[in-house]
């Protein structure tokens, strides 16, 4: 019995159940929500089991599953789990649980479809984090875009259609480059060995000329860069995040963006280490530009969601910097930063959504001081805002510090400039805090309700996790490092046979 295929299939099964029960006339309105919650709880249990199951075979990889899928093309439904994917899965499940508990209960129109799409997205993301057959990875990668597109189209805000199409064109279009890269790698391997396979571990050993490996690496890099996002290809992100429904923003910022960082580590770094080393200076530069440009733009926003979206670009610039410092410390920093960013930005989007639900505006000036009327919401918001600012003791600080530390040893100059991003981060975070929470409260006709205890306890879990990440990141740092692609090759042959 293996937990990995179940992890991928359970949300899909949940989605189908919701879709089916939605056809019944007698379903209660909160039915789909309850089923989603049950599915995610089941997923959480599965993940617990997968985490503590113990390794069934030697090697650093924790778990493995494979069955043939398309034999004529050598495509295998192969899932492997290492520390990196496991930590990403935890982030995915926890954040989506929080997101479902807090934001989706009151979806009014076609709640069933909404939840089915949400679960389908989660399933695609889980698959992306686990797949080690390149084709399967690509399949999941593309698959998770479709439900997000519909979430945006159906439940987004005023400008949603433009945002949805922009999102899809950018991510799917760049995905085609990855398709070519995957095929290139497979065909080179095929011509060398005569074996048609999409297996990650076999392809990691493909001998490549420097030029080819650079080209293939770029083919992988560009779609990941679009997803992360890196600055010249980030233009889809602010629109998409702003227009998405709250749950969509949380899933997008907290989880989907991480697939970009995950992909860079798993595929760029592990498959083309040597090309990455040659490409690192340019990538570092792109990361730096992302940090400063994103932060600069965030300072100028007056829409809360847009501000958070731009701050994401800045934070994920650090991830980029960490990955392409090509050192274990930088990598650990990048992973911590991804986890912390997922939690803090996810939290911020939940707060922004809660504000928008209550006040029907996202404009910082119109919202004006909430502390008086909603002290609990405001204090949580304050917490996430200063977490994203990078205050010591919280996860983001640990990540950013490690990244800067690793960057310093590569190029002190870039590290100094990147530190500027932290200063800008305090500017926009404090702008958010001052404008939304601390400003004198504007007179409002209708009374607003604050978060109740249940909601506070869920957000409390996210906050605790951020504190743990900040105070004692060591176990996660050592645990979540990606396992090398080459070690299990002898092993995987045995497993496959």
């Amino acid at each position: 019995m293996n937990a990995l295929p179940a992890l991928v299939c359970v949300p899909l099964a949940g989605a189908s159940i919701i879709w089916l029960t939605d056809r019944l006339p007698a379903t209660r309105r909160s039915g789909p929500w309850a089923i989603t919650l049950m599915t995610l709880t089941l997923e959480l249990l599965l993940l617990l089991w997968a985490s503590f199951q113990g390794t069934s075979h030697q090697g650093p990889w924790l778990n493995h599953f494979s069955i043939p899928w398309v034999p004529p093309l050598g495509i295998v439904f192969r899932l492997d789990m290492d520390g990196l994917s496991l930590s990403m899965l935890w982030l995915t499940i926890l954040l989506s649980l929080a997101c479902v508990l807090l934001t989706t209960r009151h979806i009014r129109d076609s709640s069933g479809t909404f939840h089915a799409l949400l679960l389908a997205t989660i399933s695609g993301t889980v698959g992306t984090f686990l797949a080690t057959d390149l084709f399967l990875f690509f399949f999941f990668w593309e698959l998770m875009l479709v439900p997000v597109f519909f979430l945006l189209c159906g439940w987004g805000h005023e400008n949603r259609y433009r945002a949805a199409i922009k999102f899809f064109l950018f991510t799917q279009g760049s995905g085609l480059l990855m398709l070519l890269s995957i095929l290139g790698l497979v065909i080179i391997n095929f011509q060398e060995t005569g074996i048609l396979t999409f297996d990650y571990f076999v392809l990691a050993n493909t001998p490549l000329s420097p030029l080819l490996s650079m080209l293939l690496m770029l083919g992988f890099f560009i779609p990941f860069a679009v997803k992360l996002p890196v600055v010249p290809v980030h233009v889809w992100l602010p629109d998409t995040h702003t227009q998405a429904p709250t749950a969509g923003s949380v899933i997008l910022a907290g989880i989907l963006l991480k697939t970009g960082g995950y992909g860079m580590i798993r595929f760029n770094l592990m498959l083309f280490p040597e090309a990455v080393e040659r490409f690192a200076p340019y990538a570092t530069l792109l990361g730096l530009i992302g940090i400063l440009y994103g932060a600069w733009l965030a300072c100028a926003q007056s829409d809360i969601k847009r501000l958070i979206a731009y701050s994401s670009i800045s934070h994920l610039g650090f991830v980029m910097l960490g990955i392409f410092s090509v050192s274990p410390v930088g990598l650990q920093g990048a992973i911590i930063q991804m986890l912390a960013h997922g939690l803090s930005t996810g939290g911020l989007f939940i707060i922004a959504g809660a504000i928008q639900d209550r006040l029907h505006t996202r404009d910082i000036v119109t919202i004006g001081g909430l502390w008086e009327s909603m002290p609990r919401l405001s204090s949580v918001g304050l917490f996430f805002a200063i977490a994203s600012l990078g205050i010591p003791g919280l996860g983001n600080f640990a990540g950013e510090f490690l990244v800067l530390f690793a960057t310093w040893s590569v190029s002190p100059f870039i590290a100094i400039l990147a530190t500027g991003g932290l200063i800008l981060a305090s500017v926009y975070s404090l702008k958010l805090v001052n404008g939304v929470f601390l400003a004198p409260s504007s007179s409002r006709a209708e009374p607003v309700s604050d978060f109740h205890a249940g909601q506070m306890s869920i957000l409390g879990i996210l906050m605790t996790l951020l504190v743990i990440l900040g105070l004692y990141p060591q176990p996660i740092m050592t645990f979540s490092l990606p396992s090398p692609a080459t070690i299990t090759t002898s092993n995987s042959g045995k497993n496959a046979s």
Partner: protein
Amino acid sequence: MIINGIFLPFPLFVLSVGTMLLLASVTLHRSSRLSFSLGLLTLVLATVMTYYPAPIMPLAATQTLFFADTWANYTAALILLSASCIFILSWQDVTQRSARSADEYALLLLLGALGATAMVFSVNYMPFFLGVEILSIALIGLVTFRSRHTQKGLEAAMKYLILSGVSSAILLFGIGLSYSVTGSLVFEFSTAGHETGTGIAAAASIMVLSGIFFKLSAVPFHMWILDVMEGASVPIAGFIAVVPKIGIFSALVRYFGSEPVTPFLHNTMSAIIILTILGGNLLALCQTSLIRLMACSSIAHVGYLLIAFYSPGHFQSDTMVLYLAAYTAATLGTFSIIQAFVSPEGLQRSTISDWKGLFFTHPFLAVAMTAMLLSLAGIPPTIGFFAKFEIAASGLEQRHYILLTALIVGSIIALYYYLNIIRLMTTPNTSLNIGQNKKTNLTIYSTVFILTLIVFVGGIFPSFFMNSIHPALPSTRAEYLQSHIPLP
């Protein structure tokens, strides 16, 4: 001499007999219902016949007219299934709506299928040309059939008549030139005569190719398809988008065998492929009518198919097999859904903005439509994703980088207009109603359901469609024939 070599593959035989029976029954008793049943029965029988291997007969080597290999049988089965689908779609439309009986419609559809099947099986210029002409003439009749409702049908048929006549003439002239160079009517690309440098051989191949590309609506020869498809009724537009293309494409593959295209055609082929992909997709961007958009998208898909055709290698045969199936299923599905919204007066709701809010009024059809469009755009979990994946694989294997760039650019453009339709379907306000009675809806709904199933199942388990149906190479064909009677 030709008499010696007459051998009809089973499906062709069944189709011919069925056509004659249909003609006879029409002379005895005119009844749309009877004609349609007879036509459908013939098509189903012929489809079943494609599963039986062709009999091995002693043949005069160069004079054989037909050859039935797995490739021909596969494409014939696709053609016959598509034609049956079109039959089912137009059944109620024609038999109930028109005042007078519609036997001609069934007859012409059957003839069209016969023509396309003949092209698929032929290995000689003569039956190939006959197949092309039977199909074209049947199409003219079918397109005019709508003229009872609107003048557009007449106009479209006229356009098709003239343009297709011209292209047939070019094709015929090319065949004549080719005969003058090689002295044989065997339907295969002949390298003979190219070395002498007279240019006649080159002119012959180019003329034959022009004729083929016209029927295939590859880009410099694509002008007719938009107007003709718009003018025709919805099922016939679906027929035009699918059946002739499969037939001609299958013949094109047979013409070259699956061997590398000769060098002097390399630039021409690349140029045509790039023009077809980009032209089709760019044209589709500015269409407001769904039928015209589908016509453009069919042009673009021919471009993708030509990449597979132009890239012989390990992936080629699987690619062509899968892509034809994917394209056929998704296109027929789209047209079935459009047909579901044709009003009882025969009015088409093909303006794209009419499709607003479909998700709210007809969720099943909207989901099916989305599946079809995603498949055409090449997005998982649909069969079109695998098809496009294979196209990229075969192109990459032969290192056609420029073509792959065109593929990517084209796909991104295509994504925009397909998504635009899906986006419109999710907008809340609506104007579309299903205009037909329950019985019709049931047939159309079940057709749509089966096609959607194919699109999804093919997208998740594509190995069903990958059993390496290689077109027999001219060399193996010659070998096979040689084993009976040596070449003169």
